[in-house]
């Protein structure tokens, strides 16, 4: 018997999950025929309702396999996987999910508008709002009107990605699975994607994001799982990872004489404990061990009449975490 989508908020969510866990994966195992090594070796994680959860790892790590299992497209060989306590193949789950594959393939005989209309219909949404919903979605993903009636086989990679995103969102999903959504998109497309992701977060949609773009992940994800060789190495909360050693890059609004600048920075470094890596009249690179130390350096600069135009970390916290795990940087496995 099919359950209603509203059941998703009330269904049993599994013994290991927290009260607000929407997706629960316990000891998930997946093997592929003809491959000795397991693709997934006991993955355990949970995604909370309204959370943006990132999957990060090298090629062949098992991210896409995990997403395939979460979507019910692949059959796990062991472990447990539930979405709001239901099997991922339950129609009640499919009614509330949206999915964008890394390289979406579309029925080539469709125009963009026809394609979205088709998926609106497959989503089981009200026919009365179909035309309006489709047009609104095409506008939302920034597809030019001239492309709406063009066949999808005439689309560029970036346009296909935008259309794929529109397809993922046309069913008004509560849970969105995005596999490399920014892949092939031009810079305005990436910006638009970020806006859409933030909008989704604001609307309390749950997002599972698989991406190699660390900055993209950094901006939208609440937590990130580092996957390698079919195993989760660690799951990091982005809010907890703001305090990490990094290089602070500063730009000055006014040029100061070398001697004055060196003297001022020597005293700032001595007082704050930071190390000066590089300094010139236009800017400086300072090694700090924490966000607090960075804040102190900026404050002291201002107190010392150094006109700071901008100050930002050279690397994101995810890059830092990535670098902390050298095994992620070497030995990419071949694609599955």
């Amino acid at each position: 018997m099919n359950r209603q989508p509203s059941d998703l908020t009330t269904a049993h969510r599994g013994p290991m999950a927290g009260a607000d866990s929407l997706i629960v994966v316990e000891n998930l195992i997946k093997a592929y025929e003809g491959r000795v090594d397991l693709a997934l070796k006991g993955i355990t994680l949970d995604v909370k309702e309204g959370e943006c959860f990132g999957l990060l790892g090298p090629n062949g790590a098992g991210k896409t396999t995990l997403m395939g299992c979460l979507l019910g497209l692949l059959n796990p060989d062991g472990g447990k996987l539930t979405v709001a306590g239901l099997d991922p193949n339950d129609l009640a789950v499919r009614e509330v999910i949206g999915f964008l594959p890394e390289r979406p393939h579309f029925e080539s005989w469709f125009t963009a508008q026809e394609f979205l209309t088709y998926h609106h219909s497959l989503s089981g949404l009200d026919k009365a709002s179909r035309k309006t919903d489709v047009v609104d979605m095409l506008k939302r993903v920034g597809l030019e009107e001239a492309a709406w009636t063009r066949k999808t086989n005439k689309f560029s990679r970036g346009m296909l990605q935008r259309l794929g995103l529109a397809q993922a969102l046309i069913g008004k999903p509560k849970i969105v699975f995005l596999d490399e959504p920014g892949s092939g998109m031009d810079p305005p497309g990436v910006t638009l994607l970020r806006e859409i992701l933030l909008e989704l977060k604001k609307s309390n949609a749950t997002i599972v994001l698989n991406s190699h773009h660390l900055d993209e992940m950094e901006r939208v994800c609440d937590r990130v799982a580092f996957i390698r060789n079919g195993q989760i190495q660690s799951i990091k909360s982005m809010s907890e990872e703001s305090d990490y050693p990094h290089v602070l890059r500063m730009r000055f609004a006014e040029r100061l004489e070398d001697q004055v600048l060196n003297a001022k920075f020597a005293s700032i470094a001595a007082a704050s404990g930071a190390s000066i890596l590089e300094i010139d009249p236009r800017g400086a690179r300072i090694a700090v061990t924490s966000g607090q130390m960075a804040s102190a350096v900026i404050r002291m600069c201002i107190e010392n009449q150094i006109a700071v135009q901008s100050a930002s970390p050279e690397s994101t916290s995810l890059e830092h975490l990535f670098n902390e795990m050298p095994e992620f940087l070497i030995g990419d496995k071949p694609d599955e």
Partner: protein
Amino acid sequence: MNRAIYIETIKKILKQRFVVFMLLAMGVLLPLSLILAPTPTVTSVDGWDAFAVSTIIGLITVTATNAIGNSLSIGGRSDYMPLIFTRPLHRYQYVISKWLALATVIAVVSVLQNLLFTTSGAFTRWGLTDEMIVLDFFERIISALSVSSVLTMIYLLPTQTMVLSGVIAFELAAGISILAMSIAVPMPETATDVSVLLCDILGIDDWIRTTFIPALFGGSALSSIQQYIAAIINLSNFLAPQIHLYDILETRPFVWSALLEPISNILIALTIATAVLNAREYHYDVD
């Protein structure tokens, strides 16, 4: 059934120019050529009209448009099936929608042929009674449903199995003389028994049997090939059994099994197709 998939599949079939041309040729030109022919060359064989026509149309439709599975049937990765199967629909709905869409196209063309034969008076001229004519319409629809279910099953099988099944489908077509460019048309021999006659359209069938095959393989090859074709006809009857409504209704006592056979075969074919879809995994891309 899923209405959207059903409608879009029919649209997809009709968007292929080659297929539309072939469907028109099968539905209009072929019947017209038979109707207008003053004295068609006729040979008596055991064959079947609706089944033959439906299978030919079905094969042309499916092979030309790949309407059932598209990339689903030719590989696991990089296709659009994952997008469909993450939508709220059961996989059996997909199978039923594709089957009915294909059956609709085949049935429409097949029935169109019958309409032309009926309105032109050809059926009456050939001696068919009103009852036979009416029943022939139903037979064509049942044949379309039957043939479509087999083709749907074949095109949803995994790649390796599909290759083997493709050979069977090809043989199925060969078994009903598609290679001889012939079409079977029902002709009554007696009031209670409908036999079927094969009309040679362009003389190609006769030329292949009497000249081409003996020249190519020697005189004894013809009988071997005829035995081979007879075996294939049996196989195709097994895959998609023929139904003779008029005979069934005229036979006393009434034989239910004759009606149940195509129904059970349709159910088996669709069940296998659904089981295959349920068991399959859908890799949408490399990791």
